């Protein structure tokens, strides 16, 4: 069936009143949590995961997608008005956006962020429509060795690129793989890491682990540094753009979109790198370089905000076509697939084609809703910044416990939630990134299955793992990723020798 026809059917499904309601709910929730400092989209989706036991999958994913896009938008409000990025992806927006707000141009900063997000999100979703089927049909021909190689690539890329150090990344991955191993080994029926506790035989629920790692860890993190006083928000009027602002914004929007999508689609790309690249590019290309860092340049908000949203679309593309989580939020959404018993991966487009196309259609709808809601409502959203912090964080704990408990109504689940939350806190405290942990928990069992399947077919011959051109190619890429610091060091030496050094250095955060 034609792609556009399938999309049209997706729209027909997504435009039913119920699904429209969930899209609106998701977008509102997403914007709200994006605006609230300290609440991220991954955390929100994690908190809502228990709903998957009560909602039908289509509605749940429509809502999750709305939260993802809404969060990408809402984070910009906090960055601009409060200089406190609600998300790591809007750190760059805060640089110029807050300066613009301080010099009285908050309305324009919010407007260029909203329209840029809309344009980038729409283009990104179109790319998803065009690319989904080709990628999936390519991926569906992969056998166990190829699958394994792609998963190893995802593991290595995430651990090598994110976080303070690679060793810590790999250690985090190992801990995640370990958590994923708890329970019965599906192939042999042997118990692993259950310590004779009957509740552990079924394994740790991914929903529980995700809620603990994101929500409880965040609450404990805030609790541990409560003494840091919050900043005051800058009041704002209705967002609008003059013709001059518009003509300064549209090129950065498009360039940001181009940066964002591919980075969102690859493991470990995320939104931080493309937003930063976009910022640097706009700063170089701007006709008003004097505004950067002083009164705030609109290009420095328009580009990164667009990059941010199109990277979300790229992330969703990898999730739907390959079953690979390339961002924390899609990692949590994959957990939702698992809890519905839907196997994510290239076959998803065929086996759950209705769900996938409805979800894609709802991305367009969510994007349009965001623009409609956010341009006129920006002052209202800014009021959310006045919720007393104690209620906010106690609320996170409350809903996390409620979510974890309601799944099986077992008291031990609350205790497990606390234990894993403390583990997450300790990891964060010592500079371990959380995403590799979640990758290990979610992809670990699948990777083990593929490894064992591949070696079973080849009767123990290890060379089967590198027997096809694709696996060789992927492992070569992995080698490059691992050897990257060495390569960068060499490039740096060459650059220094020719006297051409990049003047801005990236400060990535996980």
């Amino acid at each position: 069936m034609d792609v556009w026809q399938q999309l049209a059917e997706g729209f027909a499904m997504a435009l039913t009143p119920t699904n429209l309601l969930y899209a609106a709910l998701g977008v509102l929730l997403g914007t709200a949590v994006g605006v609230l400092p300290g609440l991220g989209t991954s955390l929100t989706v994690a908190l809502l995961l228990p709903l998957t036991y009560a909602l039908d999958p289509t509605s749940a994913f429509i809502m999750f997608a709305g939260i993802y896009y809404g969060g990408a938008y809402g984070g910009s409000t906090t960055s601009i008005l409060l200089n406190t990025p609600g998300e790591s992806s809007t750190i760059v927006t805060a640089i110029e956006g807050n300066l613009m707000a301080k010099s009285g141009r908050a309305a324009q900063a919010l407007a260029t962020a909203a329209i840029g997000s809309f344009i980038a999100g729409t283009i990104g979703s179109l790319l998803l429509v065009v690319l989904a089927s080709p990628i999936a049909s390519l991926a569906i021909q992969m056998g166990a060795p190829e699958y394994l190689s792609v998963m190893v690539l995802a593991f290595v890329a995430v651990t090598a690129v994110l976080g303070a150090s690679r060793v810590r990344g790999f250690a985090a991955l190992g801990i995640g793989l370990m958590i994923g191993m708890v329970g019965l080994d599906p192939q042999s029926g042997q118990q692993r890491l259950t310590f004779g506790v009957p509740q552990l035989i079924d394994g740790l629920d991914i929903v529980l682990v995700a809620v603990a790692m994101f929500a409880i860890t965040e609450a404990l993190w805030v609790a541990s540094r409560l003494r840091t006083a919050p900043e005051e928000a800058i009041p704002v009027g209705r967002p609008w753009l003059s013709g001059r602002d518009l003509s300064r914004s549209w090129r950065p929007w498009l360039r940001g979109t181009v940066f964002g999508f591919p980075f969102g689609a690859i493991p470990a790309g995320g939104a931080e790198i493309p937003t930063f690249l976009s910022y640097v590019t706009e700063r170089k290309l701007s006709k008003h370089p004097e505004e950067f860092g002083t009164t705030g340049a609109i290009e420095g908000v328009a580009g990164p905000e667009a990059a941010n949203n199109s990277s979300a679309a790229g992330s969703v593309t990898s999730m739907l076509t390959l079953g690979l989580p390339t961002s924390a939020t899609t990692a949590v959404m994959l957990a939702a697939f698992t809890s519905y018993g839907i196997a994510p991966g290239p076959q998803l487009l065929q086996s759950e084609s209705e769900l996938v196309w409805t979800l894609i259609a709802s991305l367009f709808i969510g994007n349009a809703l965001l623009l409609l809601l956010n341009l006129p409502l920006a002052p209202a959203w800014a009021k959310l910044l006045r919720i007393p912090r104690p209620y906010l964080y106690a609320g996170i704990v409350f809903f996390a416990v409620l979510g974890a408990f309601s799944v099986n109504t077992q008291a031990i689940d609350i205790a497990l939630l606390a234990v894993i939350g403390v583990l997450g806190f300790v990891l964060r405290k010592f500079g371990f990134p959380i995403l590799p942990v979640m990758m290990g928990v979610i992809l670990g069992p699948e990777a083990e299955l593929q490894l064992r399947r591949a070696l079973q077919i080849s009767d123990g011959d290890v060379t089967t793992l590198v027997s096809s051109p694709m696996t060789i190619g992927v492992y070569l890429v992995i080698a490059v990723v691992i050897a990257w610091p060495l390569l960068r060091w060499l490039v740096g030496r060459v650059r220094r020798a020719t006297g051409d050094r990049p003047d801005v250095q990236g400060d990535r955060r996980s």
Partner: protein
Amino acid sequence: MNRARPGIRSDLSVVLLLVAFGGLLVWDTLTAPADDMRRGPVGPQTMPLLVAGVLLLCAAVLTVEALRGRRPRESDVDATDWRTWTAVIGAILLCAVVIDVAGWVLAGGLMFYLCVYAFGSRHYVRDLVVAAVLALGSFYLFYSGLGIELPAGILQGVL
């Protein structure tokens, strides 16, 4: 000298954590009953041992890095408010302990109230009202909206 020591100590506690996890995996795998349902050349022990290897290797590299004084950019280790931290985690564990007897409304409400206090709110009456609204609201929302019956505990019959 004085400044370097807590850094080293925290680095080494990370190493201990990783060694503990790695050791746990090895111990659990080696004490597991021999599997006779093994299918294929890779049994249920391979991955745990592989992961244990990764963890122990990371621990070794981190030890070397710590001893050589190489430390990554880290989230600020200083100024940790352990009192608030303990109060929050304590409230969650208390909830886990009392929930079977007290039910969700009382246990969850109490947990929220303690957390709000821990996070610094001192509006005792307002906090109590918010806690009660959240606890009762979630109970009835789950019951009527999602069809999930949370335990009522000692309030059985009242709610």
